């Protein structure tokens, strides 16, 4: 997921560093006109991430479902729609960028700019579902009282830390420049960085969780 995202994002779509929200409509249109093919291919790759979100999230949910098996799997139930929203975000932001890159020379610059705006907003602004996803992962981990817990407890705290740090992305609507604009250090680069730390940490700990699940289900069979 990380590889696909960065290949689509950086060399193809050229969104790192991010274009400035303070740029004029003409500049924005020119950017889409010049890089139309790169954006089209890059965003097609981002679309694949929507599917990967779902399978990745389902694997995490299976593990927290295992933890919550004794009671009601409410946290697992919360995770499922939040990963659907995350997939939808990937679908819509890539689609809006595709729309912006579709006819960059045939329409007025303001239309291209508006499509670019809404794409960036879709990509960064909805921090709440992502943070809710992280909290819904953290809570079952902290409540896990089994002998061989699915996830180590520090993963819960990493999730809580990540949940906090998506919040600055919600500030982009107030700014066209500065650290809290959509190309800003604190609203773009920081949440993006935190997100990929989260993906790596969850992927690694997921392997551990699956392994502990295999061992838990294998034990009865080895009893003589």
């Amino acid at each position, binding site marked *: 997921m990380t590889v696909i995202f960065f290949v689509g994002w950086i060399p193809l779509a050229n969104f790192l560093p991010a274009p400035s929200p303070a740029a004029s409509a003409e500049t924005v249109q020119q950017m889409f006109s010049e890089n139309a093919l790169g954006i089209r291919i890059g965003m097609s790759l981002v679309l694949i991430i929507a599917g990967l979100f779902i399978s990745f999230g389902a694997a995490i949910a299976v593990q927290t479902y295992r933890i919550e098996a004794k009671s009601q799997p409410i946290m697992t139930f919360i995770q499922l729609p939040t990963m659907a929203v995350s997939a939808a975000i990937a679908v819509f932001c890539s689609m809006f960028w595709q729309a912006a890159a579709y006819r960059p020379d045939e329409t007025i610059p303001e239309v291209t700019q508006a499509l670019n705006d809404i794409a960036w907003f879709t990509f960064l602004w909805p921090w709440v579902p992502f943070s809710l996803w992280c909290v819904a992962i953290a809570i079952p981990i902290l409540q896990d009282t089994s*002998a*061989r*817990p699915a996830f*180590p*407890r*520090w*993963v*819960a*705290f*990493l999730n*809580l*830390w990540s949940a*906090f*740090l998506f*919040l*600055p992305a919600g*500030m982009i609507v*107030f*700014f066209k420049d*500065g*650290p*809290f604009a959509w190309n800003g*250090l*604190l609203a773009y680069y*920081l949440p993006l960085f935190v997100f990929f730390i989260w993906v790596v940490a969850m992927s690694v700990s997921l392997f551990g969780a699956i392994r502990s699940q295999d061992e838990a289900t294998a034990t009865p069979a080895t009893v003589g």
Partner: protein
Amino acid sequence: MLTGPQREGSGDVRPGGDEVGTAGPHVPGEAGIWVFVLGDMAVFALFFVVFAVERAAAPEVFAQSSAALDGGRGLVNTLLLLTSSLLVARAGSAIRAAPGDPSTRSRAAALLVGGAACGTAFALHKIPEYWAKVESGIGVNTNEFYTLYFLYTGIHLVHVLIGLAVLTVLWRAARRAVARPNERRLFESGATYWHMVDVLWVVLFPLLYLLG
């Protein structure tokens, strides 16, 4: 697998987790809370660097705007949080010293209420402070200083509000007649979070209010 009697008060033994044996120092709380605290402090360090860079680019704006902040209110808030941390720390050490004694437990619960009251006062005291600025037409977009002022203190305020929820969890634990097995870890983790919130403010206050 246990190598001998556990050290008194060394907390819980959790298979595959935070095992505290008979050797080695005791880490307050659990490893995870330190992942959170150090990660959060790293991010706030980044916030402070951003502040320094922006300030270097526009020193007069920062000096002027900082002088317009209500330093008295800031000082009151600092004292509120410091007092709050003191009360929470006292509650934690009381619980650790005599987890089984009912009068100690209720005293700890009262100390936690005091700590949470100070934290609540901090949060409520923000309202007139922000409102005074908003009423005079100053908002997040007024200049670079005010962007950082509102957003840094706002993000800190969210930490305070979450901290109040954490203190509530600790209070409920202290009010239980019988201590749960992981209680010490819970108290230490919760208190560590609250002290972090305090430390962040202790840096924010001079940075925003006094540096100008």
